[in-house]
């Protein structure tokens, strides 16, 4: 049995920040990461981040990942286990993991769940054809491994991910034939939309996928226009060729482990689906289990990092590791989280978080 003060499940932006904060407060931390290296989805983010300096604004995602990884490797309180998938969480607090093809048990005194999210899918005819990829997969292929996902793409989803990935595709030398979205308005920031429109890519709203075509791989797609009630408009179908149909229709939190130990959950569409209820300190209905990042509700990487810091500090504090600056740090992180979610852009998230509040 491996013993530790704090187990952090997931080495993405939220998990890395949680580990750093808990370790700096004096707790011994183990980070369990199922991939071969830390970083999560940050390593494929080539765009510069928004927010303030404290959240690494104007730095690119993969550079932020490098900064956090360096801090972790220099921290004596943190052990990183890669190729380690947490497969079970038990009521007595035990975690079971598969590490380098071996089954092991872990007994932490507190746990931060930072498992992230998985991509949502869309129902349409032939949606299982090869060449129909999630936006994250497209980013992984082209931004991490330098492989083009196709020669011409139709992007489904005009939220921030759809818009940013469309731009990244063009940077990689791939033609984007159109960005479509079923909603009547572009969901993402207009600064991203204008950028790709200037490069000649049409953004078609009130449009959805009817059928993908192809035998062994996708070769094209029939799209259809929607009316104000989201119903298909008769005879409005049109065809676009593509060898990659990219699906960017949102994410669902990965919450399986928290279901296993009966943590109180809530269905919150604004946060991507079922999420654990948590208080301001990112503490769940199991007092020794904290949550951070997309697993607590889908937002973006900047807020995931702030949530990670809040969860890490509080996990340490829960175990009695408190330093003179714990409370001032926490006050600062709460303020940062509020500012990231402020204004009309954060309205949906604020409403969602209210529904996920632990009484």
């Amino acid at each position: 049995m491996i013993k530790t003060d704090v187990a952090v499940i997931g080495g993405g932006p939220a998990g890395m920040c949680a580990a750093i904060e808990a370790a700096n407060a004096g707790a011994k931390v183990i980070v369990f990461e199922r991939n071969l290296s830390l970083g999560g989805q940050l390593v494929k983010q080539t765009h510069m981040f928004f927010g303030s300096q404290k959240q690494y604004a104007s730095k690119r995602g993969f550079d932020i990942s490098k900064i956090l990884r360096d801090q972790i490797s220099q921290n004596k309180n943190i052990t990183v286990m890669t190729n380690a998938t947490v497969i079970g969480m038990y009521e007595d607090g035990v975690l079971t993991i598969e590490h380098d093809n071996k089954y092991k048990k872990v007994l932490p005194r507190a746990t931060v769940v930072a498992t992230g999210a998985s991509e949502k899918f869309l129902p349409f005819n032939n949606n299982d054809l090869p060449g129909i990829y999630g936006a994250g997969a497209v980013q992984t292929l082209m931004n991490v491994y330098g492989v083009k996902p196709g020669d011409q793409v139709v992007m489904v989803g005009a939220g921030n991910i759809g818009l940013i990935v469309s731009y990244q595709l063009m940077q990689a030398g791939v033609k984007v034939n159109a960005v479509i979205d079923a909603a009547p308005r572009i969901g993402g920031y207009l600064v991203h939309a204008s950028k790709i429109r200037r490069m000649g890519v049409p953004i078609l709203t009130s449009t959805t996928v009817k059928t993908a075509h192809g035998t062994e791989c996708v070769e094209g797609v029939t799209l259809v226009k929607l009316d104000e009630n989201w119903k298909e408009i008769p005879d409005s179908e049109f065809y676009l060729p593509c060898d990659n149909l990219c699906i960017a229709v949102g994410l669902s939190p990965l919450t399986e482990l928290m279901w296993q130990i009966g943590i109180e959950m809530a269905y919150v569409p604004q946060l991507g689906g079922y999420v654990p209820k948590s208080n301001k300190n990112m503490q769940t209905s199991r007092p020794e289990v904290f949550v951070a990042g997309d697993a607590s509700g889908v937002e973006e990487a900047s807020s995931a990092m702030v949530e990670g810091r809040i969860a890490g500090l509080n996990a340490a504090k829960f175990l009695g590791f408190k330093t003179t600056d714990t409370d001032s740090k926490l006050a600062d992180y709460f303020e940062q989280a509020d500012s990231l979610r402020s204004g009309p852009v954060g309205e949906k998230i604020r409403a969602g978080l209210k529904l996920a509040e632990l009484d």
Partner: protein
Amino acid sequence: MRIEKHPILTFEKGETVTFTYNGTVYSGFKGEPIASALHANGVRTLGHTHDKHRPRGLYCAIGNCSSCLATVNGKPNVRICVEPLTKGMVVTQQNGRGVLKND
């Protein structure tokens, strides 16, 4: 399908190695996922379903969705979107459920 020039990124590439896929020899970079090496060689159909024999490719590329299962060096149901490529690997398309050999 490799990106030749990129305005922001440079790609760290491992040593070039050869491997086989359904008996055909391909080359890729050591350490990259098998599916990425196959994709770079234009191979995008990675299997067929056991019931309706519909073609399958990768979907998530991060080991979540299990759409890319293949047999690698005799071991079935390997998620080749996250399995690192090594020299001389024998990869075969898996049609339907994999078979685990008794040894």
